[in-house]
């Protein structure tokens, strides 16, 4: 038998000290972004290339989405690749660089000063991603088996590095003409490399391992995952080429159709996992995560609509584009994070507090470390807030936008409340 003797002393999981700061930072970033959303609601009645919208977007995608993905993946990568994390100090370095870079970058956007705050912010973010990339790459090299999930995660990180590098070039391009066009012309390229290359690949790479694992499902289909991987990367490369060399809106279908196909196949993968699950009861956190897989298709359908409008009319459908961006960030990415936070963080905290006390008496279940009632209220406020704010963008009614933003702000407060409750949990035995 392949054995690991002396296992009670095994220390192969990533330390909570390397992971928890990412979660805490992300929670505060979500609160800050929703606060800014409320006070900047009026800016959503104008063009999407607005300093306040750029600041909110970067707080959400970097401070909220990326920070929590980085934190969770430091804990989950060993599960995915079946090996230990290469270096915890590198994980901490990644946190420090990102934690310092994100406020600088966001401040630069908010006041629209593309000088030193935005430049240093962008550079620090690249250093954070490089640290993560090295850590991940070295961890994967140590792992002996070929693993489709690890390839997804590593490729996602390479796309994140490309996204951030393009972003930094765009920041400098405001002052020095590095590119042939204005920085705003490359916004869509930068955004989609991040949304599809980073978030979509990362979420599918980890979700395809975690969803069957949490559902205790018998389903496993690496071949389908390789197809999804090929379709997403193919679509993204097609998008970059069409963006740089063609700009014919109809040719964008070459990029969008493979990604829609990939998401549909991932939907099928999740549905098969759900059908073949051994554990019949599905908890609220898993339900919201599974719902977010379906939500993935909403912005893509909207994108297809935007492409049709762009192809047949001369003007830019500003409201549709803003709605698309909002649904991607506040809809799809946020719904996944809201669900997965309370699927992963309670276990990290439980492990920290009780791993030496297990078996010494009645210890609470990880799910009892946060309030299910607050979670349900948060989910409801979030879902309704998202819908109301989307309506506000489409109708440009300030009162509707403010109502939606206020609900999202309350959802963020409840999220922080539960995260704080988790992080301050004291042992009961």
């Amino acid at each position, binding site marked *: *038998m*392949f*054995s*690991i*003797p*002396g*296992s*009670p002393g*095994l*220390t*192969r*999981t*990533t330390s909570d000290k390397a992971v928890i700061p990412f979660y805490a930072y992300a929670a505060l970033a979500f609160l800050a972004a929703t606060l800014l959303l409320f006070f900047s609601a009026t800016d959503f009645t104008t063009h999407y290339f607005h300093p306040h919208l750029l600041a909110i977007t970067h707080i959400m995608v970097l401070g909220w989405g990326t920070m929590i993905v980085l934190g969770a993946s430091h*804990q*989950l990568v*060993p*599960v995915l690749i*079946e*090996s*230990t994390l290469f270096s915890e100090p590198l994980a901490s370095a990644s946190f420090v660089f990102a934690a310092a870079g994100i406020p600088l970058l966001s401040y630069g956007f908010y006041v629209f000063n593309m000088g030193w705050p935005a430049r240093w912010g962008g550079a620090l973010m690249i250093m954070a991603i490089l640290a993560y990339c090295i850590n991940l790459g070295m961890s994967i090299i140590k792992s002996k088996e070929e693993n489709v999930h690890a390839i997804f995660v590593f490729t996602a990180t390479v796309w994140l590095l490309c996204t951030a590098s393009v972003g930094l070039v765009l920041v400098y391009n405001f002052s020095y003409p590095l590119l042939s066009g204005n920085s705003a012309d490359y916004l869509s390229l930068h955004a989609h490399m991040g949304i599809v290359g980073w978030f979509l690949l990362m979420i599918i790479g980890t979700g395809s391992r975690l969803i069957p*694992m*949490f559902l*205790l499902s*018998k389903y496993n289909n690496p071949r389908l995952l390789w197809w999804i991987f090929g379709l997403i990367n193919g679509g993204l490369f097609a998008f970059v080429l069409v963006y740089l060399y063609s700009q014919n809106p109809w040719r964008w279908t070459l990029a969008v159709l493979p990604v829609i196909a990939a998401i549909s196949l991932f939907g099928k993968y999740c549905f098969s996992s759900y059908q073949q699950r*051994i*554990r*019949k*009861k599905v908890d609220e956190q898993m339900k919201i995560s599974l719902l977010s897989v379906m939500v993935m298709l909403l912005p893509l359908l909207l994108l297809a609509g935007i492409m049709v409008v762009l192809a047949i009319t001369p003007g830019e459908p500003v409201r549709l584009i803003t709605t698309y961006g909002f649904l991607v960030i506040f809809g799809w990415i946020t719904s996944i994070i809201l669900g997965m936070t309370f699927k992963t963080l309670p*276990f*990290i905290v*439980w*492990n920290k507090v*009780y*791993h*030496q006390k*297990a*078996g*010494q008496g009645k210890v609470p*279940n*990880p799910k009892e470390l946060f309030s299910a009632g607050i979670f349900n209220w948060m989910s409801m406020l979030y879902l309704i807030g998202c819908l109301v704010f989307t309506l506000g963008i489409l109708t440009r009614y300030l009162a509707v936008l403010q109502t939606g933003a206020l609900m999202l702000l309350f959802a963020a407060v409840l999220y922080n409340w539960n995260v704080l409750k988790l992080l301050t949990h004291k042992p009961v035995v």
Partner: protein
Amino acid sequence: MNPITNNNLKCNKALEALVNVMDPEIGLNVVDLGLIYQLDFDDSDLKLFCSMTLTTQFCPMGESITNAVKEALQHAFPEYNVEITLVFAPAWNHEMISPKGMTFLNEE
């Protein structure tokens, strides 16, 4: 799946103790989950060897679960020195769950 043992009587006592050790994510005990592979009692040296697995290798809860198994066995057999060995071959699969465990998991 019943664990391999060299002492059925003591093995039953050990399993009774281990049904109180839960996998915190699944909410099912390690015995009905089929994580315990082997329980051997060395009466001359007073050693209890337990071979067990986890539902997934590099499980973040692995250390807590193995600690709890050791603690429960030590409590049930205070005169023995308990040694836990974590094994991943054969890998755990759903067929190792006991009928009682399956009934628990099938509850809506």
